[in-house]
């Protein structure tokens, strides 16, 4: 079985902190000299909930890169992405409800299982919930 090369998924903001309406940009690429044969790659900017409840999530930005005969998908080349972030929901670290934002890269290789890489970031500057109200 062909082993997946290391994947780089980086946001341009080193701090990983954004404000509503701000532009988020970054890039992803696979490291290594040998081309990695992949069927497709999916890049999503999304929020999801963590904590006690079932997970809710919504995709804000979605891009799909497909390996086609005329346009082979070479992940060794950096693929850039950018989007304007929405006004809500803001990142939140509550007591039983947490809202997290991330850029998520899902790669479907031609052989082997899919790989998942995430780069988390914060949207807004909401304080964490106090331990006791």
């Amino acid at each position, binding site marked *: 079985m062909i082993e997946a090369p290391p994947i780089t998924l980086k946001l341009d903001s080193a701090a990983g902190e954004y404000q509503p309406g*701000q532009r988020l*940009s970054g890039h992803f690429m696979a490291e290594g000299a040998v081309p990695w044969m992949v069927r497709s790659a999916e890049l999503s900017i999304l929020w999801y909930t963590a904590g006690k409840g079932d997970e809710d999530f919504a995709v804000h930005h*979605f891009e799909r890169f497909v390996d086609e005969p005329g346009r082979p998908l070479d992940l060794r080349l950096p693929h850039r992405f950018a989007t304007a972030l929405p006004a809500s929901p803001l990142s939140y670290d*509550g007591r039983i409800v947490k809202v997290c934002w991330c850029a998520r890269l899902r790669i479907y290789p031609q052989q082997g299982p*899919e790989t998942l890489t995430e780069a988390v970031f914060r949207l807004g500057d909401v304080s964490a919930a106090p331990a006791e109200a």
Partner: protein
Amino acid sequence: MAPRLRLFVKKRGQRRTGSRWYGTLAVAALDLALVAIGAAGLYWLLAHVLLAEKETYGWFAWAAIVIPIAPIGYGVTDLIVLVWRNLASTERRAAAVQMATDWELPGMGPHAARTSLPAVPPIDEVVDSAGVRLAYRLPSDAASGQMSFALTFVSVIWNTLVAGFVVSLVRDYYQGELNWRLAWLVVPFALAGAWSVFALVRQILLTAGTGTTLLEIAEHPLYPGQKYEAFLSQTGRLQVRWFQVQLVCEERATYPQGTDTRTDTAIVHRETVFSERKFEIPPGGAFETHFTVAVPTGVMHSFSAAHNAVSWMLVVRGRMARWPEFERHFPLYVFPLPATPVAAATAISPRRIEQGSV
């Protein structure tokens, strides 16, 4: 050692005890079986009944065709959903749903005239109700009304059944055929019925006796770090021991536990914005006051998703002489602060040429 197979144990949490492919295959097999049963039924109905020679049925008989078509439709639809779920990632499916949600159907116009933010509940319920002293009258949540309705429903059904038993027992008693075991068996049910009547009367008296609470606010939605003028009116012939209005933020999380669905709540902010002790509301009069609601800086906005929520509300609490403590909730909507000019400018700036930057 492999865990022993246990058939009659309630499963807790969301951990998976086997491969998800077993479940997928089982659902696919069930769907195919439904389609096969429906197809066989449809063939039999057409070949042997509706289109059979020497048999004449009216148009009404053709309505029976719905019976075999229903499992075919259900099976095919579920198969398509199953294939879509297994071929497309959760993000791709969510993006497709999001795109479909954003479509505007012909003739329906925009979704809402007011500002709509992702995962923030709409404020239409509040801003559609104008206040008398201030701009908006806050609607009370329907909890006490729902409680009264539920108690009435349970009380009527329960006591009707108990009354039927009691009438039957009384008739048996006068006929000298009373079954004492059955009579004793009815006693706890009758006591439960009496308790439901007591609880209903208490609920009605509490709702009616503590009068009407009216809350109005000058602006809506609210924003973190801002102050808002509010107005309170409390009617009823009451001797008030203490009376409070609190600004409350509550987290709510829904999750499955075994076959049950549970909801947990956590109060993450509670602040008394108005408090008064020992005063009297005269008959026909009302206690009226203005106060200020300050939403703290850096707090979470109202958030609403299928299983998780963050809700803001004004809670009116009080204790009247001869009455138990009461509490009424008035939902508020706190929106995230609008994007700053700097952030907005960044958002509309042209995309940089990134060649060679990585």
